[in-house]
């Protein structure tokens, strides 16, 4: 029962398998479907181009503005490149970015086969797809840059495409190096921070010391030709070559964990099921709640010495209003169990999530500073950062939404429960907003930045939490939903689009007061002008929270109406045919 010694036949078998499966996939392609997809992609790309053109405007920059781009553009692009490289290092530290099939892990990686040779084709495939997509995106950005900056269109497109492709090449390369050498999560994160820090130092000092800034130089070649920029090519190319050489060292344990999660993640992303994407992404990053909370809430729920009877599910709802509490061990009134449950969840947030919340708050603050200084499109970045932070902050509510059977066992309406548990999340988002205000004040060099951010913090937090709750509570779009069967396909499509777009738009409303504050009118100060629109912003947030409160009732009513309509449309068995 011993095997004979032969390695190359195994690789041949693997190559044959890939060839046969590819041929089978090609044979199964519906070309009309493929053409339709290409048609949709072209339309979406056109829309993106049109929107992007609108955002950057069509008028050429003046000489002073162009000179400023020439002076500061390279380190700014370098910072963006650093972010891409950092994402790669983080992913590699966690065993990514290879996304293998579970069956490949079990059958191929456990076979006596050279793992480097077995994994390299998959790594190359992912690298190629990423680089091609990045080149397209970069070319688009180059085109948008051409509309505002001096120079010819072809160099801008070529440089934009090349730099984006090189950034992604470097990102993948470093990721493969990190996973192949098994540097681990902590080292991956530290290296990622070091890369960002290096690029940020270049940005702050105006010096060109990092390969990322050299790539930034390359991106600005249509403005000024600097031969040094070519040196920036070295890092991504070397990283990719080394990465492909060492990718065989990737941990099988990580590969198996990722294999099961990545497939689900892609499926959830395809369905635009944001909550599932968030949960799976956390699992992928091994982001789990802390065993011990950062701070233990005072002891109402101390573990009983002897096994106690499980508390009735009704206790959560009843106790919020009337108060029942854990009467077995402590006969005290328990006034706010829903709030308490929310805080218990939040106090177990892992350090990584807290760091991410602060980082997103800082990002939102810096984007708001950019809006204040005149770059209005950064409002989207601020809104998006608040929205992403809120998706983390509403975790306690999401836990209830994820388990509808348990939630429905409480003697309290789901919407009511969501709102009660939202209060701790609003507090968390207020702190996130204050972090942003602090960052804006530091970066802007003025205390006014903090004052403006501080007065906006609570309304922005309400809006962001409402947005996060909307995303979480509405759940995944139903693929086969009986309530949609009477809806024309166009309407169903628009409805799905609105489901995706409205929550981030609600979060963005919270970032709007800065627009009123930057150009005060009728003698108001900047701060007073900002404050003057806060009631409207708060009102929008409250309306969104109202939607969350009554969402279940509304969807229930809609579903029932649709079902009744279907019954009336169905031909009666007594109707003569």
């Amino acid at each position, binding site marked *: *029962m*011993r*095997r*004979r*010694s*032969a*390695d190359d*036949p*195994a690789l*041949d*078998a*693997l190559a*044959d*398998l890939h060839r*046969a*499966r590819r041929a*089978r996939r090609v044979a199964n392609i519906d070309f009309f479907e493929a053409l339709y997809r290409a048609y949709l992609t072209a339309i979406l790309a056109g829309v993106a181009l049109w929107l992007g053109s609108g955002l950057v405007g069509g008028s050429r920059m003046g000489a002073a503005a162009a000179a400023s781009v020439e002076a500061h553009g390279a380190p700014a692009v370098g910072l963006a490149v650093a972010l891409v490289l950092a994402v790669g290092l983080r992913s590699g530290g966690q065993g990514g970015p290879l996304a293998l*099939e*579970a*069956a490949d*892990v*079990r*059958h*191929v990686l*456990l*076979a*006596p*086969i*050279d793992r480097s040779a077995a994994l390299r084709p998959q790594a190359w495939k992912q690298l190629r797809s990423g680089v091609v997509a990045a080149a397209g995106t970069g070319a688009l950005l180059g085109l948008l840059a051409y509309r505002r900056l001096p120079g010819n269109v072809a160099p801008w497109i070529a440089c934009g495409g090349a730099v984006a492709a090189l950034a992604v090449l470097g990102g993948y390369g470093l990721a493969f190096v990190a996973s192949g050498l098994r540097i681990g999560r902590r080292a991956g994160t530290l290296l990622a921070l070091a890369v960002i820090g290096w690029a940020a130092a270049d940005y702050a000092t105006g010096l060109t010391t990092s390969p990322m800034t050299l790539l930034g130089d390359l991106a600005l070649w249509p403005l000024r030709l600097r031969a040094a920029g070519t040196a920036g090519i070295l890092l991504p190319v070397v990283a990719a070559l080394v990465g492909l050489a060492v990718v065989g060292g990737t*941990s*099988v*344990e990580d590969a*198996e964990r990722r294999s099961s999660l990545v497939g689900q993640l892609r499926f959830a992303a395809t369905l635009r099921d944001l909550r599932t994407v968030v949960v799976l992404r956390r699992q992928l990053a091994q982001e789990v709640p802390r*065993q011990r909370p950062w701070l233990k809430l005072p002891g109402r729920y101390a573990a009983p010495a002897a096994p106690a009877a499980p508390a009735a599910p009704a206790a959560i709802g009843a106790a919020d209003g009337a108060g029942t509490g854990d009467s077995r061990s402590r006969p005290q009134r328990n006034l706010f169990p829903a709030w308490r449950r929310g805080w218990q969840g939040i106090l177990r947030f892992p350090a990584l999530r807290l760091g991410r919340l602060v980082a997103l708050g800082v990002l939102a603050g810096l984007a708001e500073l950019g809006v204040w200084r005149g770059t209005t499109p950064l409002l989207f970045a601020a809104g998006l950062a608040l929205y992403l932070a809120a998706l983390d902050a509403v975790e306690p509510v999401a836990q209830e939404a994820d388990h509808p059977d348990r939630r429905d066992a409480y003697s309290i309406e789901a919407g009511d429960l969501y709102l009660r548990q939202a209060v701790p999340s609003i507090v968390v988002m207020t702190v996130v907003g204050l972090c942003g205000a602090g960052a804006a004040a530091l970066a802007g060099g003025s205390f006014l930045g903090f004052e403006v951010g501080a007065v906006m913090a609570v309304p922005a937090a309400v809006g962001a939490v409402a947005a996060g709750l909307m995303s979480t509570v509405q759940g995944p779009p139903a693929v086969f939903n009986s309530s949609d069967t009477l809806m024309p396909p166009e309407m169903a499509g628009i409805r799905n689009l609105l489901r995706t777009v409205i929550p981030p738009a609600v979060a963005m409303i919270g970032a709007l007061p800065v627009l009123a504050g930057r150009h005060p009118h009728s003698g108001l100060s900047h701060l007073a002008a900002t404050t003057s629109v806060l009631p409207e912003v708060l009102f929008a947030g409250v309306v969104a929270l109202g939607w969350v409160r009554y969402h279940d009732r509304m969807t229930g009513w809609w579903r029932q109406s649709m079902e009744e309509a279907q019954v009336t449309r169905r031909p009666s068995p007594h109707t003569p045919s």
Partner: protein
Amino acid sequence: MPSGPPPALETTVLTKSYGDLVALAPLDLSIPDGQRVVLVGHNGSGKTTLLRMVAGLLEPTSGRATVFGHPAGSMEARATLSYLPDNPVLYDDLSVLEHIEFTCRLHGAEDWEDRAAGLLHDLGLARRAEDLPSRFSRGLRQKTAILLGLVRPFGLLVVDEPFVGLDPQGRDAFIELLDDAASAGATIVVATHQLEYVQKVDRCVALRDGELVFDGPPGEVDVLALVGY
């Protein structure tokens, strides 16, 4: 210093922990070539963790495991260890026969056609050989995974909860196949809750909460009571 053939499986202070949670406390174990061993323990006792580390799917937190003297997960160890997991993982778009061919070619098996035909017959899969396992029931998928584990060459067979989802005929057929493999000289390590199988083996290893609580002949003590069944 005595130097004989290396044991089929040897672990030296092999440990696995996830943060504060110790899934497997330091374990020293040596299983000689040709022995039949059953691994028992309640859920969460560390059986699957041990087998997955031996198979090279999990990395130990500390310590080491060797297969016929080679580090677990190394190419030599993979060549001689066949791992049958508790959850069958198969390609969606390959038939049973295509799975067999692929597995045999990956492992450099010779003259596998006759052995495959025999296994297909024994496991009752002969008439489903051209079908896609992705459309099979749990039990049939388990049988396919068993077939793939046995059709390739191996010196050490590591099996995790193999009887889950099998019908009585399938269970009997599989036990017979394990007997055949043992007769042919293979070392067999089976983790199971199937109590009657415990009586068929040479040695019983019991784990509780990640720690070794018994290692010896199965009839020696009331092992089942020891692990809390």
